[in-house]
């Protein structure tokens, strides 16, 4: 399932040629539409790697979890620190699980 873009928050990375989500997407699926907002052009090919969700500086991206993992309404939200990442997983019953990781390797 491709990521959902909040069209109000997305600023198309100030209408750059390549917005951040496009640069980071391993399948080169994200691009800017005519309204200068990002969208996923090949919904079937998305692997749900969530690179775009993590990188979006506006927080405009949201993952839609594939039905094999969680039913509609479940959410997986990453929050990026400088060298850390925290995950919040909310299932359809509203049960919340959280994970916090410190990335390996140094910051530079």
């Amino acid at each position, binding site marked *: 399932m491709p990521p959902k873009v909040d069209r109000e928050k997305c600023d198309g990375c*100030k209408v750059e040629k390549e917005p951040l989500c496009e640069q980071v997407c391993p399948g080169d699926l994200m691009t800017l539409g005519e309204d200068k907002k990002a969208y996923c052009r090949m919904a079937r090919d998305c692997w749900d790697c969530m690179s775009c969700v993590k*990188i979006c500086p506006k927080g405009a991206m949201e993952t839609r979890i594939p039905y094999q993992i969680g039913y509609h309404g479940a959410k997986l939200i990453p929050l990026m620190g400088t*060298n850390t990442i925290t995950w*919040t997983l909310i299932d359809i019953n509203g049960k919340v699980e959280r994970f916090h990781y410190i990335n390996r390797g140094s910051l530079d």
Partner: protein
Amino acid sequence: MIPKVIPKVGIFIYDAGGRLSRAIDLAEVVQRLAKAKNVTRREVFNNLEAPDPISSIQEDLRAGRLNRILWVGRFPDARRRRIEGELTAAGLNPYLQEWCDLEEQGIGRGDFDRAVQAQKAIILIQMALARTRLLAPLMPLEIPAVDAALIIGGGVTGLHTAASLADLGKKVFLIEKESGVGGKVAALRRLYPLICDPHCGLEFALQKLEKSGRVEIHTLTRVKTLAGSPGNFSVRVEKQPRYVDEQKCIACGECITACPKEIQAGNTFPLAGDFSNRGQQVWNPNGLEKAIHQARPLAYPSTYVIERQHCPPECRECQKACPTRAVELEQTASELEFKAGAVLIATGWDPYPLTRVEEYGYGVYPNVVTNLEMEHISEEPPDLQEVGFIQCAGSRDERYLNYCSSVCCSITLKQVLHLKEKRPGVRCYIFYQDIRTSGFDEELYQRVKSLDQVIFIRGDPATVKPEENGRLRVRAEDTFSGKELDLHLDLLVLAGGMVPSEGSRELAHLLKLPQNSYGFFEAHLPCHPEESQRTGIRAGGACRGPMNVVHSIESGHRAAFDVLPFLSGTVRLEPTYPVLNLTKCDKCKRCMEECPYASFYFDGNGFPVPDLAKCRQCGNCVGSCPLFAVSLGHFTVQQVASQIQAIKSGFLGKEEPVVLAFLCKNDAYPAAKGAAESGLPIPPNVFFIKVPCAGSINNAFIADALGFGIDGVLIAGCQDDQCHYVKGNQLVKTRKENLAEKLQKMVIEPQRVRFESLEIRDSRRYVDLVTSYIAELKKMGPNPFKT
């Protein structure tokens, strides 16, 4: 690539005569630090004056047993500077020392448990230690610079500032769009308070310029482009043809006699509409001159100038008449380029077009004039009996100009004095809202009030109508007595306001200089009145706002003083400038967007690069980067991240909240420091990190803090519109809102991130704020990431 040096940190705890050991058990602290990584020495000392530990540190530094020093405790500023000097002498880079003041973080304040205080102290030392490990030696940068200044505008501000800069030995290029220098002031007849001729002061400045030999004046010249950075600007200008060779013309006047074409005398006040020359037409019947004439407004340079657009075709009379063959009718416009270290703008003001204020009939009735036209009339007044002056004509009125131009009251008083001197019998009526003679101008007011036949009327005239005999019938109400007045006047003078000149607007566009809502160049009031958001470019004089001649000259000098560092041959930069990690950067150019000083440009590969000479090192780029690829020297992302990681959020137990505060070093940090200094009880739950500007706080820092289980993050910056770096507090607020929304989705209370404005003396408020925030967080429960 700098080889990685293994840090060898020495921790030195200054007990300050037992002050610290009274609050915490220092032996325990030292013992707890025994296993800290990269620490080779850890000591407590009690006497600042004893040769130890400084001499033994120097020895260790020279022997390579130490390469970073962490000072813990409260040091007198003067002593701190001395220690820095002493260790620099032993070969330690000043940026390899870290100072950790436990008292300003609240250790020893309030009656909190000794054990809790000791734990907080250990965390604080570990935070500082984490940072100390990552310190890098830094050296100031020196950029070669040009020692010349460019001044745009040859009015009274430009000339006096040029003269002073030349006195300091600087080369000055002065450009002026008119054919001669002097600007608006040269077109005035009298200056208050001495009622003296303004040409005298201008002449004085010009003689100084001539003598110095360091000032190049280019008239009929306008700026075309500006490139480069502070210290090394290159300015292209366009010089319009003069048609007379400046090297040959001796201003003998033979060409003027020969010239067949008479034109309307040049108007020194560009007024609106076709009535621009009317003042001279009515009161000076000889308002004609030839197409070749002297430079204006001041005949300097003394070379003549031809207004070619008025020349009859194929006319060569002036060329034939010129004894020195100075006339060159084939001249064309040329472009010049100047290298300058700094640019000063002194483009001045324009009079407000009074034709817009229709009720007074300016431009319709010939004997309604502006105060500028009155300058000439009061010098050689015709036969007048009754004269009216209307103050604030169009000023302080939301339909026209809703500000006070500050000089018009004094100008009117000056003109009344001058007129009464020439024609003692004239009766003057002054219609006013308020007479605003600030400072010593009050004396002028007193002098006018003591004159005979000068009547002050509070209230604006209701109607101005012409009469058959050429006089004006003015009806007004004196709002003090409530009496209706019906006056018959020979002349009505309107005191119009000042607006930014056409040239200012043009330059603002060209140099991308921010203007305020009235179109004057923006400043940071009150601390930096000549501040501009473009480093190395300053504006002075009336292009900053309405001001009189005295203030204009002062303002020009102040602006020149501000740019002196860029005129000294080298620009010295502190090493705390931004550095981009280009392997991380993906050219999103958010740093470029958010930089308040427009100091970023694209390098050859499309990466944004800061122009270090333009940069003011506020760190807003650090905060803006979504990939945290930007760091300031001595405030790197790694250093801050490591400090945050060193905070043990559970040290007070899971239920007791821990707050991390990011304090702007300009306002909020002194407030917090003041709280400690005045002995206010600072709860042990709060840790702060000093940041260069609230705008330098990256959302990733906050995410880090929340991820490590810190219960609340407090961002304290300046009040709205008071940020020293223009908009840092607004930027961080927007980012915070963005993050709060995400937290909401994550089922974390968005109140865990909070922005507050603190003024520099808000010490008590800081303590109250922190205390109430802790209580609020306690009610909220612990951060779900807390372990």
